[in-house]
């Protein structure tokens, strides 16, 4: 260390690190008041520290922080709250891998009626997760896998690398054909009430209605694309956003041309920026507006979740609970379901 001409300059660092205490420290402090070299040594050490503390750092964005928080709490619940189940769960998972082929053959031949909490069922290429008291069955017929849903909600992931079989989901009021995807279908009272496609696409053919193609990120009703023969699609937004956020369509006087569509990326980032600036009210309004204007955007679930968070930060308990309930209704298998459920109570 460059310490000039004073043999005591090294003691400056010793004080900083706590190696010099008591009388020895007091002695050096008195010395430093009259020694330019040692005084400069203190200043240099302070500058080093200040330089390190002022290094640039880019904080994680709010969405990432919330995702990580959710992941942490899920891991805490899984690993720490019920640790006595972990060894058993690992043994079960290993055993399940050994018997899944036998279980798959039995599943294809039998009707399933479940009232207990859902469990995943491995089919030949489709992974099916039934929720609640779902009633459904599955069979293979020549080149097709047929899943019949009588009631309840199924989440289905199809692995097209395993087989060339088509997957057909028979509904009480129609059928749904998979084209290579992950999707969720819900049936209530003999009617298909919701289809949400995470990736890929599906054909939905309901009796008396035109076929509908539902792409990844879309939710039906309000699918992005219908065949030309269909009548007007249902138009009302499915999420219970406040009515005041419906944006009017501006028109040039005397013109019939509508204004250009809003850019969803700009709207989403604007709302996120407000949340990051801790302007919760503006963020909540921004996300509500995004959901009204871009209900089919792939970030709609993120926006619905962040709207809940923003309202929570506003301290509006009632609005938070309503937004959380709306999120759970629209995204019953949503990534942040566990966290939002706590806010909906």
């Amino acid at each position, binding site marked *: 260390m460059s310490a000039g001409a004073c043999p005591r300059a090294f003691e400056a660092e010793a004080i900083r690190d706590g190696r010099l205490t008591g009388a020895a420290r007091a002695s050096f402090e008195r010395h430093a008041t009259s020694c330019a070299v040692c005084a400069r040594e203190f200043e240099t050490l302070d500058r080093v520290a200040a*330089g390190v503390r002022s290094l640039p750092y880019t904080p994680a964005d709010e969405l990432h922080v919330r995702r990580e928080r959710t992941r942490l709490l899920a891991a805490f619940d899984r690993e720490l709250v019920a640790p006595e189940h972990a060894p058993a769960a690992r043994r079960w998972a290993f055993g399940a891998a050994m018997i899944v082929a036998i279980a798959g053959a039995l599943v294809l031949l039998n009707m399933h009626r479940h009232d207990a909490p859902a469990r995943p069922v491995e089919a030949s290429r489709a992974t099916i997760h039934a929720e609640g008291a779902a009633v459904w069955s599955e069979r293979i017929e020549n080149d097709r896998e047929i899943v019949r849903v009588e009631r309840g909600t199924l989440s289905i992931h199809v692995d097209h690398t395993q087989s060339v079989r088509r997957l057909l989901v028979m509904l009480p009021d129609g059928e749904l054909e998979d084209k290579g995807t992950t999707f969720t279908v819900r049936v209530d009272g003999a009617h298909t009430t919701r289809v949400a496609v995470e990736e890929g696409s599906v054909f939905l053919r309901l009796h008396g209605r035109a076929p509908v193609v539902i792409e990844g990120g879309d939710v039906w009703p309000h699918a992005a694309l219908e065949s030309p023969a269909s009548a007007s699609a249902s138009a009302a937004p499915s999420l219970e956003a406040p009515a005041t956020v419906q944006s009017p369509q501006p028109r040039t006087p005397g013109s019939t041309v509508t204004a250009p569509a809003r850019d969803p990326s700009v709207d989403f980032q604007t709302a996120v920026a407000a949340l990051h600036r801790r302007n919760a009210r503006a963020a909540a309004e921004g996300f509500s507006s995004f959901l009204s204007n871009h209900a089919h955007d792939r970030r709609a679930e993120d926006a619905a979740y962040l709207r809940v968070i923003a309202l929570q930060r506003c301290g509006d308990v009632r609005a938070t609970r309503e937004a959380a309930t709306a999120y759970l209704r629209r995204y019953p298998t949503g990534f942040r379901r566990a966290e939002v459920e706590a806010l909906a109570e």
Partner: protein
Amino acid sequence: MNVRRTLRHPAPPAGAAPDPDILRRLAGGEMNALGELYDRYHETVRRFLARATSNAEDVDDLVHATFLAAAKSAARYDGRTSCRPWLVGIAAQLLRRRRQSFGRFLAVLTTFRGMRATTTDPRAALQARTEVGESLARLSEAKRVALLLAEVEGLSCAEIAEALGVPIGTVWTRLHAARREIRRALEDGEAP
């Protein structure tokens, strides 16, 4: 002349639960307590790890592991007013274990390949736009961590030694070497 290091970190907002209370609830298995702890200190832990490790991809996993480890050892928390140094110490321990594990893995791998082991400290991008930043990036991870714990997080050398599992003399040596490099960078930056 102020010869005492005084680092002031933001205090929890007025009316917020004290850290020892949160840790006590966390020790009792209360998930909300972990959420509160995360909300209060995730930025601190993330900032330390982002600057300490040269592998940016590790930061999320290490932050995650830090809070889980804190939850597991919450019952042994000593009740200090602020648990920030304790959390950062956990993060530093995890960082050291990860580096050692990777180093052992790499040594085994290169032994089988008949090659000499290369550095276990992949120097991916630290955002170093200043001389100090560049100099910090060039430091070994051990020196960099010691310097960050001392000068940014305000841990005493005894706390750093305990967190890193090394003798306190090793901490002094690492700090001295790290400061020397940073000083050199500052002096070079000021040279006409």
